[in-house]
Protein backbone atom coordinates (compact mmCIF):
# COMPACT_ATOMS: atom_id res chain seq x y z
CA UNK A 1 0.00 0.00 0.00
CA UNK A 2 1.43 3.35 -1.02
CA UNK A 3 1.41 6.10 1.53
CA UNK A 4 0.65 9.57 0.29
CA UNK A 5 2.55 12.32 2.03
CA UNK A 6 1.16 15.81 1.98
CA UNK A 7 2.11 19.08 3.51
CA UNK A 8 -0.58 21.63 4.42
CA UNK A 9 -0.34 25.10 5.79
CA UNK A 10 -2.86 25.82 8.52
CA UNK A 11 -3.22 29.25 10.11
CA UNK A 12 -4.38 30.00 13.63
CA UNK A 13 -6.53 33.13 13.71
CA UNK A 14 -8.32 34.97 16.47
CA UNK A 15 -8.27 37.85 18.92
CA UNK A 16 -5.36 38.34 21.29
CA UNK A 17 -5.06 36.16 24.36
CA UNK A 18 -7.65 33.64 23.18
CA UNK A 19 -5.13 30.77 23.39
CA UNK A 20 -3.95 30.20 19.81
CA UNK A 21 -0.30 29.65 20.82
CA UNK A 22 -1.38 27.48 23.77
CA UNK A 23 -3.55 25.33 21.49
CA UNK A 24 -0.61 24.77 19.09
CA UNK A 25 1.70 24.04 22.01
CA UNK A 26 -0.85 21.57 23.43
CA UNK A 27 -1.28 19.95 20.01
CA UNK A 28 2.38 19.79 19.01
CA UNK A 29 4.16 19.45 22.35
CA UNK A 30 1.33 18.28 24.65
CA UNK A 31 2.21 20.98 27.16
CA UNK A 32 0.45 24.01 28.60
CA UNK A 33 1.89 27.08 30.26
CA UNK A 34 -0.12 29.35 32.52
CA UNK A 35 2.04 32.30 31.46
CA UNK A 36 0.55 34.45 28.75
CA UNK A 37 3.11 35.57 26.18
CA UNK A 38 1.70 37.53 23.32
CA UNK A 39 2.80 36.56 19.84
CA UNK A 40 4.26 39.14 17.55
CA UNK A 41 4.33 38.36 13.84
CA UNK A 42 3.93 34.64 13.39
CA UNK A 43 5.34 31.45 14.91
CA UNK A 44 5.64 28.39 12.76
CA UNK A 45 5.39 24.83 13.99
CA UNK A 46 4.99 21.46 12.39
CA UNK A 47 2.94 18.44 13.29
CA UNK A 48 2.63 15.25 11.32
CA UNK A 49 -0.62 13.34 11.40
CA UNK A 50 -1.54 10.06 9.87
CA UNK A 51 -5.00 9.80 8.39
CA UNK A 52 -5.51 6.28 7.12
CA UNK A 53 -3.09 5.88 4.24
CA UNK A 54 -2.21 9.53 4.26
CA UNK A 55 0.55 11.23 6.13
CA UNK A 56 -0.07 14.91 6.45
CA UNK A 57 2.55 17.36 7.62
CA UNK A 58 0.64 20.27 9.08
CA UNK A 59 2.63 23.49 8.95
CA UNK A 60 0.98 25.51 11.69
CA UNK A 61 1.18 29.25 11.41
CA UNK A 62 0.36 30.79 14.75
CA UNK A 63 -0.50 34.37 13.90
CA UNK A 64 -0.36 37.33 16.24
CA UNK A 65 -3.70 38.06 17.86
CA UNK A 66 -6.03 40.52 16.29
CA UNK A 67 -6.97 43.71 18.04
CA UNK A 68 -7.35 47.38 17.29
CA UNK A 69 -3.62 47.97 17.54
CA UNK A 70 -2.31 45.09 15.50
CA UNK A 71 -4.54 44.14 12.63
CA UNK A 72 -3.97 40.80 11.06
CA UNK A 73 -1.52 40.77 8.25
CA UNK A 74 -3.45 38.94 5.60
CA UNK A 75 -0.18 38.18 3.82
CA UNK A 76 0.49 35.44 6.39
CA UNK A 77 -2.57 33.60 5.13
CA UNK A 78 -1.14 33.18 1.66
CA UNK A 79 -1.00 29.53 0.65
CA UNK A 80 -3.04 28.37 3.63
CA UNK A 81 -5.07 25.20 3.05
CA UNK A 82 -7.34 25.91 5.98
CA UNK A 83 -7.46 27.74 9.25
CA UNK A 84 -8.52 27.49 12.86
CA UNK A 85 -10.53 30.39 14.25
CA UNK A 86 -10.17 30.70 18.00
CA UNK A 87 -12.34 32.64 20.45
CA UNK A 88 -12.16 32.90 24.23
CA UNK A 89 -15.37 31.67 25.88
CA UNK A 90 -14.88 34.08 28.78
CA UNK A 91 -14.74 37.12 26.45
CA UNK A 92 -17.70 37.29 24.11
CA UNK A 93 -16.11 40.11 22.11
CA UNK A 94 -13.50 37.63 20.83
CA UNK A 95 -16.25 35.70 19.05
CA UNK A 96 -17.08 38.88 17.16
CA UNK A 97 -13.40 39.22 16.25
CA UNK A 98 -13.33 35.63 14.99
CA UNK A 99 -16.45 36.16 12.88
CA UNK A 100 -14.97 39.33 11.40
CA UNK A 101 -11.65 37.59 10.60
CA UNK A 102 -13.45 34.81 8.84
CA UNK A 103 -15.18 37.36 6.61
CA UNK A 104 -11.91 39.06 5.75
CA UNK A 105 -10.17 35.77 4.98
CA UNK A 106 -13.01 34.67 2.79
CA UNK A 107 -13.05 37.99 0.96
CA UNK A 108 -9.34 37.68 0.17
CA UNK A 109 -8.74 33.93 -0.20
CA UNK A 110 -12.19 32.47 -0.87
CA UNK A 111 -13.95 29.76 1.11
CA UNK A 112 -11.31 27.67 2.87
CA UNK A 113 -11.95 24.86 5.34
CA UNK A 114 -11.87 26.14 8.89
CA UNK A 115 -12.74 25.14 12.42
CA UNK A 116 -14.03 27.44 15.14
CA UNK A 117 -12.77 26.64 18.60
CA UNK A 118 -14.27 28.32 21.63
CA UNK A 119 -11.38 27.94 24.00
CA UNK A 120 -10.95 28.00 27.80
CA UNK A 121 -13.68 25.48 28.45
CA UNK A 122 -11.91 24.78 31.75
CA UNK A 123 -13.25 28.21 32.88
CA UNK A 124 -16.78 27.38 31.85
CA UNK A 125 -18.33 29.10 34.85
CA UNK A 126 -16.84 32.38 33.61
CA UNK A 127 -18.07 32.06 30.03
CA UNK A 128 -19.96 34.91 28.49
CA UNK A 129 -20.42 33.18 25.14
CA UNK A 130 -23.65 31.26 25.44
CA UNK A 131 -24.72 27.87 24.17
CA UNK A 132 -27.33 29.70 22.11
CA UNK A 133 -24.58 31.67 20.33
CA UNK A 134 -22.83 28.41 19.41
CA UNK A 135 -26.03 26.65 18.43
CA UNK A 136 -26.85 29.48 16.06
CA UNK A 137 -23.44 29.13 14.34
CA UNK A 138 -23.87 25.36 14.10
CA UNK A 139 -27.27 25.93 12.52
CA UNK A 140 -25.48 28.07 9.93
CA UNK A 141 -23.28 25.06 9.10
CA UNK A 142 -20.19 26.04 11.07
CA UNK A 143 -17.82 23.48 12.53
CA UNK A 144 -17.80 24.68 16.12
CA UNK A 145 -16.23 22.97 19.11
CA UNK A 146 -15.31 23.92 22.61
CA UNK A 147 -11.73 23.36 23.68
CA UNK A 148 -9.28 23.79 26.51
CA UNK A 149 -5.58 24.16 25.88
CA UNK A 150 -5.11 23.64 29.63
CA UNK A 151 -6.74 20.21 29.73
CA UNK A 152 -6.33 19.32 26.05
CA UNK A 153 -10.08 18.87 25.61
CA UNK A 154 -11.17 19.16 21.98
CA UNK A 155 -7.71 20.10 20.69
CA UNK A 156 -6.63 16.92 18.88
CA UNK A 157 -10.09 16.43 17.42
CA UNK A 158 -10.18 19.91 15.95
CA UNK A 159 -6.83 19.63 14.17
CA UNK A 160 -7.50 16.08 13.01
CA UNK A 161 -10.85 17.08 11.62
CA UNK A 162 -9.40 20.06 9.81
CA UNK A 163 -6.51 17.95 8.50
CA UNK A 164 -9.01 15.45 7.14
CA UNK A 165 -10.83 18.21 5.34
CA UNK A 166 -7.74 19.84 3.82
CA UNK A 167 -5.95 16.62 2.81
CA UNK A 168 -6.59 15.50 -0.74
Amino acid at each position, binding site marked *: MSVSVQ*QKKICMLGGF*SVGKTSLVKRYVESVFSET*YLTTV*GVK*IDKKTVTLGDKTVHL*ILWDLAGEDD*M*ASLRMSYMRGSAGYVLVADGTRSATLEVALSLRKRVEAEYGPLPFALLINKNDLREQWTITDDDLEKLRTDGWWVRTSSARTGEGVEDAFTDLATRVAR
Partner: protein
Amino acid sequence: MTTGSAQFPAQVTERLRELVFAGRAVAWLEVDDTQTLIGAGGDLAPYGLAGLNLGVAVTEQVHILEGLLPIAESPYFMPEVEIVKGRAADLHFWTEGASGGEGGGSTWVALVEVTTQRDLTQRLQQKAYDMTLLQEKEAAFNRQLEAANAALVAAQRELEASRDELAAWNKTLEERVAAQVGEIERMNKMKRFLAPSIAELLVSSGDESILKRHRRDIAALFCDLRGFTAFSESAEPEEVSELLQDYHAALVPLIQSFEGTLDRFVGDGLMVFFNDPVPCPDSAERAVRLAVAMREAIAALSSAWRKRGHQVGFGIGIAQGFATLGQIGFEGRFDYSAIGTVVNTAARLCENAADGQIFVTSRIAVAVSEVAELAEIGMLPVKGLSRPLAVSNVVGLKDGEQKVVWLNRQTR
Protein backbone atom coordinates in the same frame (compact mmCIF):
# COMPACT_ATOMS: atom_id res chain seq x y z
CA MET B 1 26.52 23.81 -3.37
CA THR B 2 27.71 25.31 -0.14
CA THR B 3 25.71 26.93 2.56
CA GLY B 4 26.84 29.59 5.03
CA SER B 5 29.18 30.99 2.45
CA ALA B 6 30.73 34.39 3.12
CA GLN B 7 30.36 35.23 -0.57
CA PHE B 8 26.99 36.46 -1.90
CA PRO B 9 25.92 36.85 -5.52
CA ALA B 10 25.71 40.43 -6.70
CA GLN B 11 21.94 40.39 -6.84
CA VAL B 12 21.65 39.43 -3.20
CA THR B 13 24.36 41.74 -2.05
CA GLU B 14 22.74 44.67 -3.74
CA ARG B 15 19.31 43.91 -2.24
CA LEU B 16 20.59 43.24 1.21
CA ARG B 17 22.88 46.17 1.36
CA GLU B 18 20.13 48.37 2.83
CA LEU B 19 18.74 45.64 5.07
CA VAL B 20 21.62 43.92 6.73
CA PHE B 21 22.82 45.01 10.09
CA ALA B 22 25.57 43.58 12.18
CA GLY B 23 24.58 40.79 14.51
CA ARG B 24 21.77 39.43 12.42
CA ALA B 25 21.53 36.07 10.82
CA VAL B 26 20.99 36.69 7.17
CA ALA B 27 20.41 33.94 4.65
CA TRP B 28 19.04 33.46 1.18
CA LEU B 29 17.37 30.87 -0.97
CA GLU B 30 16.93 30.70 -4.72
CA VAL B 31 14.07 28.68 -6.12
CA ASP B 32 13.33 28.01 -9.76
CA ASP B 33 9.98 27.88 -11.52
CA THR B 34 9.47 24.26 -10.56
CA GLN B 35 9.93 25.24 -6.93
CA THR B 36 13.19 23.40 -6.78
CA LEU B 37 15.89 24.80 -4.56
CA ILE B 38 18.66 25.89 -6.82
CA GLY B 39 20.67 28.04 -4.47
CA ALA B 40 21.03 28.85 -0.80
CA GLY B 41 23.51 30.69 1.32
CA GLY B 42 24.19 32.98 4.19
CA ASP B 43 23.59 32.15 7.83
CA LEU B 44 21.12 29.29 7.36
CA ALA B 45 21.95 27.25 10.43
CA PRO B 46 20.23 29.53 13.00
CA TYR B 47 16.98 28.91 11.09
CA GLY B 48 17.43 25.15 11.15
CA LEU B 49 18.16 25.18 7.45
CA ALA B 50 21.73 23.87 7.45
CA GLY B 51 22.31 21.01 5.09
CA LEU B 52 19.82 21.94 2.40
CA ASN B 53 20.03 19.93 -0.78
CA LEU B 54 19.94 21.75 -4.09
CA GLY B 55 17.87 20.20 -6.85
CA VAL B 56 15.20 19.05 -4.42
CA ALA B 57 11.71 20.56 -3.98
CA VAL B 58 12.12 23.52 -1.66
CA THR B 59 8.96 22.97 0.40
CA GLU B 60 10.18 19.48 1.38
CA GLN B 61 13.18 21.12 3.05
CA VAL B 62 11.91 24.57 3.98
CA HIS B 63 8.38 23.92 5.26
CA ILE B 64 7.69 27.58 5.92
CA LEU B 65 7.47 28.06 2.17
CA GLU B 66 4.57 25.61 1.89
CA GLY B 67 1.85 27.23 -0.20
CA LEU B 68 3.79 30.44 -0.75
CA LEU B 69 5.41 29.67 -4.08
CA PRO B 70 5.19 30.80 -6.76
CA ILE B 71 4.75 34.24 -5.25
CA ALA B 72 1.80 36.16 -6.57
CA GLU B 73 3.50 39.50 -6.53
CA SER B 74 7.08 40.69 -6.42
CA PRO B 75 8.47 41.86 -4.14
CA TYR B 76 6.57 40.16 -1.38
CA PHE B 77 7.19 40.70 2.31
CA MET B 78 6.43 38.66 5.37
CA PRO B 79 7.59 40.25 8.57
CA GLU B 80 8.58 38.72 11.92
CA VAL B 81 8.31 35.04 11.11
CA GLU B 82 9.57 32.81 13.93
CA ILE B 83 10.99 29.95 11.93
CA VAL B 84 12.61 28.17 14.86
CA LYS B 85 12.01 28.80 18.51
CA GLY B 86 13.31 32.16 19.61
CA ARG B 87 14.56 33.27 16.21
CA ALA B 88 12.47 35.53 13.99
CA ALA B 89 13.22 36.82 10.54
CA ASP B 90 11.65 39.08 7.97
CA LEU B 91 11.09 37.14 4.78
CA HIS B 92 11.62 39.05 1.53
CA PHE B 93 10.51 37.41 -1.70
CA TRP B 94 11.22 38.67 -5.16
CA THR B 95 11.68 37.27 -8.62
CA GLU B 96 14.45 37.74 -11.10
CA GLY B 97 14.30 36.84 -14.75
CA ALA B 98 11.33 35.76 -16.85
CA SER B 99 9.32 33.63 -14.52
CA GLY B 100 7.95 30.63 -16.38
CA GLY B 101 9.84 31.56 -19.53
CA GLU B 102 12.50 29.56 -21.31
CA GLY B 103 15.45 29.14 -19.10
CA GLY B 104 13.09 30.20 -16.30
CA GLY B 105 13.36 32.85 -13.71
CA SER B 106 14.23 32.58 -10.07
CA THR B 107 12.38 33.37 -6.92
CA TRP B 108 14.68 34.67 -4.28
CA VAL B 109 13.97 34.55 -0.60
CA ALA B 110 16.01 36.60 1.81
CA LEU B 111 15.83 35.85 5.54
CA VAL B 112 16.85 38.82 7.62
CA GLU B 113 16.87 38.24 11.33
CA VAL B 114 14.68 40.60 13.39
CA THR B 115 14.63 38.74 16.70
CA THR B 116 15.80 41.74 18.72
CA GLN B 117 13.26 44.13 17.23
CA ARG B 118 10.56 41.45 17.43
CA ASP B 119 11.31 40.84 21.12
CA LEU B 120 11.20 44.56 21.80
CA THR B 121 7.87 44.84 20.02
CA GLN B 122 6.72 41.75 21.91
CA ARG B 123 7.50 43.39 25.26
CA LEU B 124 5.60 46.54 24.31
CA GLN B 125 2.73 44.57 22.87
CA GLN B 126 2.66 42.35 25.96
CA LYS B 127 2.29 45.38 28.21
CA ALA B 128 -0.43 46.81 26.02
CA TYR B 129 -2.35 43.53 25.96
CA ASP B 130 -1.83 42.92 29.67
CA MET B 131 -3.25 46.39 30.26
CA THR B 132 -6.17 45.72 27.93
CA LEU B 133 -6.88 42.39 29.60
CA LEU B 134 -6.72 44.08 32.97
CA GLN B 135 -9.16 46.71 31.80
CA GLU B 136 -11.43 44.02 30.39
CA LYS B 137 -11.30 42.17 33.71
CA GLU B 138 -11.96 45.40 35.56
CA ALA B 139 -14.89 46.16 33.26
CA ALA B 140 -16.24 42.64 33.74
CA PHE B 141 -15.76 42.97 37.48
CA ASN B 142 -17.51 46.33 37.41
CA ARG B 143 -20.37 44.81 35.47
CA GLN B 144 -20.61 42.02 38.05
CA LEU B 145 -20.45 44.61 40.78
CA GLU B 146 -23.17 46.67 39.13
CA ALA B 147 -25.30 43.55 38.67
CA ALA B 148 -24.74 42.59 42.30
CA ASN B 149 -25.50 46.15 43.33
CA ALA B 150 -28.68 46.18 41.24
CA ALA B 151 -29.67 42.86 42.79
CA LEU B 152 -28.95 44.32 46.21
CA VAL B 153 -31.01 47.40 45.49
CA ALA B 154 -33.83 45.21 44.19
CA ALA B 155 -33.61 43.04 47.30
CA GLN B 156 -33.60 46.16 49.45
CA ARG B 157 -36.67 47.49 47.64
CA GLU B 158 -38.34 44.15 48.12
CA LEU B 159 -37.41 44.25 51.79
CA GLU B 160 -38.76 47.77 52.10
CA ALA B 161 -41.94 46.70 50.33
CA SER B 162 -42.22 43.76 52.71
CA ARG B 163 -41.56 46.10 55.63
CA ASP B 164 -44.24 48.48 54.39
CA GLU B 165 -46.57 45.58 53.89
CA LEU B 166 -45.77 44.35 57.39
CA ALA B 167 -46.31 47.84 58.78
CA ALA B 168 -49.63 48.00 56.96
CA TRP B 169 -50.54 44.60 58.36
CA ASN B 170 -49.51 45.73 61.81
CA LYS B 171 -51.56 48.89 61.41
CA THR B 172 -54.53 46.86 60.25
CA LEU B 173 -54.00 44.48 63.14
CA GLU B 174 -53.72 47.36 65.60
CA GLU B 175 -56.84 48.91 64.15
CA ARG B 176 -58.61 45.59 64.41
CA VAL B 177 -57.47 45.13 67.98
CA ALA B 178 -58.50 48.72 68.78
CA ALA B 179 -61.84 48.09 67.11
CA GLN B 180 -62.24 44.87 69.09
CA VAL B 181 -61.27 46.60 72.32
CA GLY B 182 -63.67 49.44 71.50
CA GLU B 183 -66.33 46.90 70.74
CA ILE B 184 -65.71 45.14 74.03
CA GLU B 185 -65.84 48.49 75.83
CA ARG B 186 -69.04 49.41 74.05
CA MET B 187 -70.39 45.98 74.80
CA ASN B 188 -69.58 46.34 78.49
CA LYS B 189 -71.19 49.76 78.45
CA MET B 190 -74.30 48.40 76.77
CA LYS B 191 -74.47 45.32 78.93
CA ARG B 192 -75.01 47.50 81.92
CA PHE B 193 -78.47 48.37 80.75
CA LEU B 194 -79.37 45.98 77.93
CA ALA B 195 -80.01 42.30 77.64
CA PRO B 196 -76.68 40.74 76.52
CA SER B 197 -78.11 39.51 73.22
CA ILE B 198 -79.36 43.00 72.37
CA ALA B 199 -76.12 44.60 73.53
CA GLU B 200 -74.15 42.31 71.18
CA LEU B 201 -76.55 43.07 68.35
CA LEU B 202 -76.09 46.78 68.78
CA VAL B 203 -72.33 46.57 69.18
CA SER B 204 -71.90 44.43 66.09
CA SER B 205 -73.92 46.93 64.08
CA GLY B 206 -71.37 49.54 65.20
CA ASP B 207 -74.11 52.14 65.49
CA GLU B 208 -73.64 54.16 68.64
CA SER B 209 -76.05 56.84 67.58
CA ILE B 210 -78.66 55.21 69.80
CA LEU B 211 -76.71 56.45 72.77
CA LYS B 212 -77.34 60.04 71.71
CA ARG B 213 -80.24 61.84 73.31
CA HIS B 214 -83.57 61.25 71.56
CA ARG B 215 -87.29 61.01 72.15
CA ARG B 216 -89.29 57.85 71.91
CA ASP B 217 -92.53 56.30 73.00
CA ILE B 218 -91.67 53.75 75.69
CA ALA B 219 -93.35 51.50 78.16
CA ALA B 220 -91.78 52.21 81.57
CA LEU B 221 -91.94 49.73 84.43
CA PHE B 222 -91.16 50.54 88.06
CA CYS B 223 -91.10 48.02 90.86
CA ASP B 224 -89.97 47.93 94.45
CA LEU B 225 -90.52 46.06 97.65
CA ARG B 226 -93.28 46.91 100.03
CA GLY B 227 -92.16 47.31 103.62
CA PHE B 228 -88.50 47.33 102.66
CA THR B 229 -87.70 50.54 104.54
CA ALA B 230 -89.10 49.14 107.78
CA PHE B 231 -87.32 45.84 107.19
CA SER B 232 -83.97 47.50 106.53
CA GLU B 233 -84.27 49.56 109.68
CA SER B 234 -84.88 46.52 111.87
CA ALA B 235 -82.75 43.91 110.14
CA GLU B 236 -79.03 43.44 110.17
CA PRO B 237 -77.25 44.94 107.17
CA GLU B 238 -76.14 41.42 106.14
CA GLU B 239 -79.76 40.27 106.07
CA VAL B 240 -80.73 43.31 104.02
CA SER B 241 -77.89 42.69 101.64
CA GLU B 242 -78.78 38.99 101.33
CA LEU B 243 -82.39 39.79 100.59
CA LEU B 244 -81.48 42.36 97.97
CA GLN B 245 -79.12 39.89 96.37
CA ASP B 246 -81.91 37.29 96.11
CA TYR B 247 -84.25 39.98 94.80
CA HIS B 248 -81.90 41.20 92.06
CA ALA B 249 -80.84 37.67 91.14
CA ALA B 250 -84.49 36.78 90.57
CA LEU B 251 -85.43 39.87 88.54
CA VAL B 252 -82.44 40.77 86.38
CA PRO B 253 -82.48 37.52 84.32
CA LEU B 254 -86.19 38.02 83.73
CA ILE B 255 -85.61 41.56 82.48
CA GLN B 256 -82.97 40.26 80.10
CA SER B 257 -85.15 37.41 78.87
CA PHE B 258 -87.94 39.85 78.06
CA GLU B 259 -85.34 42.09 76.38
CA GLY B 260 -86.14 45.04 78.58
CA THR B 261 -83.72 47.89 79.09
CA LEU B 262 -82.64 48.08 82.69
CA ASP B 263 -82.44 51.75 83.52
CA ARG B 264 -81.37 51.64 87.13
CA PHE B 265 -81.86 49.95 90.44
CA VAL B 266 -81.54 51.83 93.64
CA GLY B 267 -81.88 49.65 96.70
CA ASP B 268 -85.15 47.81 96.20
CA GLY B 269 -86.37 50.13 93.44
CA LEU B 270 -85.86 49.08 89.87
CA MET B 271 -86.80 50.67 86.52
CA VAL B 272 -87.08 48.94 83.18
CA PHE B 273 -88.35 50.23 79.86
CA PHE B 274 -89.21 48.81 76.48
CA ASN B 275 -88.98 50.04 72.83
CA ASP B 276 -85.62 51.62 73.34
CA PRO B 277 -82.90 51.42 72.31
CA VAL B 278 -84.16 48.34 70.49
CA PRO B 279 -87.57 49.03 69.02
CA CYS B 280 -90.30 46.54 69.81
CA PRO B 281 -93.87 46.80 68.52
CA ASP B 282 -95.37 45.22 71.63
CA SER B 283 -93.68 47.25 74.34
CA ALA B 284 -96.82 47.43 76.55
CA GLU B 285 -97.43 43.68 76.33
CA ARG B 286 -93.81 42.89 77.06
CA ALA B 287 -93.82 45.19 80.06
CA VAL B 288 -96.95 43.53 81.40
CA ARG B 289 -95.65 40.03 80.73
CA LEU B 290 -92.40 40.91 82.49
CA ALA B 291 -94.32 42.38 85.39
CA VAL B 292 -96.36 39.19 85.78
CA ALA B 293 -93.21 37.09 85.63
CA MET B 294 -91.55 39.34 88.22
CA ARG B 295 -94.53 39.02 90.52
CA GLU B 296 -94.33 35.23 90.21
CA ALA B 297 -90.66 35.22 90.98
CA ILE B 298 -90.97 37.47 94.01
CA ALA B 299 -93.95 35.46 95.24
CA ALA B 300 -91.71 32.41 95.29
CA LEU B 301 -89.07 34.33 97.24
CA SER B 302 -91.60 35.90 99.59
CA SER B 303 -92.58 32.62 101.20
CA ALA B 304 -88.94 32.03 102.06
CA TRP B 305 -88.60 35.57 103.36
CA ARG B 306 -91.70 35.19 105.43
CA LYS B 307 -90.32 32.02 106.99
CA ARG B 308 -87.37 34.12 108.08
CA GLY B 309 -89.77 36.70 109.52
CA HIS B 310 -89.34 39.27 106.85
CA GLN B 311 -92.64 40.89 105.97
CA VAL B 312 -91.85 42.26 102.56
CA GLY B 313 -94.25 42.73 99.62
CA PHE B 314 -93.76 43.64 95.95
CA GLY B 315 -95.54 46.23 93.75
CA ILE B 316 -95.21 47.32 90.14
CA GLY B 317 -96.34 50.35 88.09
CA ILE B 318 -96.34 50.55 84.28
CA ALA B 319 -97.00 53.58 82.07
CA GLN B 320 -96.55 54.39 78.39
CA GLY B 321 -95.62 57.66 76.75
CA PHE B 322 -92.81 59.70 75.23
CA ALA B 323 -89.59 60.13 77.10
CA THR B 324 -86.19 61.57 76.41
CA LEU B 325 -83.60 58.81 76.28
CA GLY B 326 -79.87 58.53 75.94
CA GLN B 327 -76.66 58.65 77.87
CA ILE B 328 -76.87 60.69 80.97
CA GLY B 329 -73.99 61.44 83.25
CA PHE B 330 -70.36 62.41 82.79
CA GLU B 331 -67.19 60.81 81.40
CA GLY B 332 -66.52 57.63 83.28
CA ARG B 333 -69.96 57.53 84.80
CA PHE B 334 -72.53 57.34 82.05
CA ASP B 335 -75.94 55.70 82.32
CA TYR B 336 -78.46 55.05 79.65
CA SER B 337 -81.62 56.49 81.06
CA ALA B 338 -85.12 57.73 80.32
CA ILE B 339 -86.49 61.04 81.55
CA GLY B 340 -90.05 62.20 81.28
CA THR B 341 -93.55 62.18 82.68
CA VAL B 342 -94.00 58.54 81.70
CA VAL B 343 -91.18 57.59 84.08
CA ASN B 344 -92.66 59.63 86.93
CA THR B 345 -96.07 58.17 86.24
CA ALA B 346 -94.77 54.60 86.36
CA ALA B 347 -92.94 55.41 89.59
CA ARG B 348 -96.08 56.89 91.15
CA LEU B 349 -98.19 53.92 90.08
CA CYS B 350 -95.62 51.66 91.67
CA GLU B 351 -95.80 53.65 94.89
CA ASN B 352 -99.57 53.22 94.91
CA ALA B 353 -99.58 49.50 94.10
CA ALA B 354 -99.97 47.19 97.06
CA ASP B 355 -98.08 43.93 97.46
CA GLY B 356 -98.73 41.80 94.40
CA GLN B 357 -100.38 44.55 92.37
CA ILE B 358 -99.34 45.67 88.92
CA PHE B 359 -100.80 49.09 88.30
CA VAL B 360 -101.02 50.20 84.69
CA THR B 361 -102.31 53.31 82.98
CA SER B 362 -105.35 53.17 80.73
CA ARG B 363 -103.13 53.26 77.66
CA ILE B 364 -101.32 50.12 78.83
CA ALA B 365 -104.60 48.55 79.80
CA VAL B 366 -106.02 49.08 76.32
CA ALA B 367 -102.86 47.75 74.70
CA VAL B 368 -102.84 44.49 76.71
CA SER B 369 -106.57 43.93 77.05
CA GLU B 370 -106.36 40.97 74.65
CA VAL B 371 -103.66 39.19 76.60
CA ALA B 372 -104.16 40.21 80.20
CA GLU B 373 -106.88 39.95 82.78
CA LEU B 374 -107.34 43.46 84.11
CA ALA B 375 -109.23 44.88 86.99
CA GLU B 376 -110.09 48.53 87.02
CA ILE B 377 -108.93 50.30 90.15
CA GLY B 378 -110.49 53.62 89.25
CA MET B 379 -109.24 57.17 89.13
CA LEU B 380 -106.12 57.57 91.17
CA PRO B 381 -104.66 60.92 92.13
CA VAL B 382 -101.01 60.83 91.37
CA LYS B 383 -98.40 63.09 92.88
CA GLY B 384 -96.91 65.44 90.31
CA LEU B 385 -99.85 65.12 87.93
CA SER B 386 -102.58 67.68 87.85
CA ARG B 387 -105.30 65.19 87.03
CA PRO B 388 -106.03 61.76 88.51
CA LEU B 389 -105.21 58.73 86.33
CA ALA B 390 -107.44 55.86 85.32
CA VAL B 391 -105.57 52.87 86.74
CA SER B 392 -106.03 49.13 86.28
CA ASN B 393 -104.44 46.19 88.01
CA VAL B 394 -103.07 43.30 86.01
CA VAL B 395 -104.59 40.26 87.55
CA GLY B 396 -102.92 37.78 85.25
CA LEU B 397 -102.32 36.70 81.69
CA LYS B 398 -104.98 35.13 79.52
CA ASP B 399 -102.70 32.90 77.52
CA GLY B 400 -100.00 32.11 80.04
CA GLU B 401 -99.72 29.87 82.98
CA GLN B 402 -99.66 32.93 85.14
CA LYS B 403 -103.34 32.85 85.91
CA VAL B 404 -105.00 34.94 88.48
CA VAL B 405 -102.57 34.45 91.24
CA TRP B 406 -102.55 37.91 92.62
CA LEU B 407 -106.02 39.02 93.45
CA ASN B 408 -106.87 42.57 93.94
CA ARG B 409 -105.49 43.62 97.19
CA GLN B 410 -105.86 46.69 99.07
CA THR B 411 -103.61 49.49 98.10
CA ARG B 412 -101.56 50.68 100.98
